[in-house]
């Protein structure tokens, strides 16, 4: 038993059967491929992160 997905640039991700079996069905990966423009800092995002940390 193994599971595979293919995203951008045809990169395939496969979860090895040993891990899936050992986890007794509890292992799952959420996978997202994206194209981005990375910035050093965004004040609004930082505020959001700080707020999450205060919960």
């Amino acid at each position: 038993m193994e599971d595979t997905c293919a995203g951008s640039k045809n990169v395939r991700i496969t979860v090895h059967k040993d891990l899936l079996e050992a986890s007794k069905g509890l292992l799952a990966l959420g996978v997202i491929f994206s194209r981005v423009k990375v910035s050093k800092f965004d004040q609004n995002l930082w505020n959001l992160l700080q707020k999450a940390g205060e919960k």
Partner: protein
Amino acid sequence: MRLSDYKGSNEALLKRVLSSKGLYQINTVVDTNNYVSIESLRSVGSYDLSQLAGDITFRKGLPNEKYTGTTNRSLFLKNLPVLCDENGPFGSPTSDSNRALINETTTDVLTVIYSFDGPSFLEEQLLKVKDLLKTYAAGETFSMFIVKDKLKLD
């Protein structure tokens, strides 16, 4: 090697929050990871696809496998779940290697939310990553999957 070096990155992040040590500010993609990790209580990793080669496997670390983590400590990977490309391990739910770190020159990103308690809420968490990357990193051209159910999301 310290046992505390092997806790999940989500646990390490929460520990910082709870001990009032403050959060790291890195860049808008890593900050997004950290936000979703705190909200979901799951480890989240983002990787620069231009630094990876070939297909990716999530498997058990082999004896003698190790890499230098983002904290500049050596992480011994034997029996840890690790993400590997054709050049070997580059990421894990514990700590990522320096090889595929996101920086301001990164354009193509792979983000992984690691769940060890089933796929519950993964779809919502992926949508949150998508929304934040759109807003704070001009994100586009998304493809999302949950690797377990062979489920491709729109």
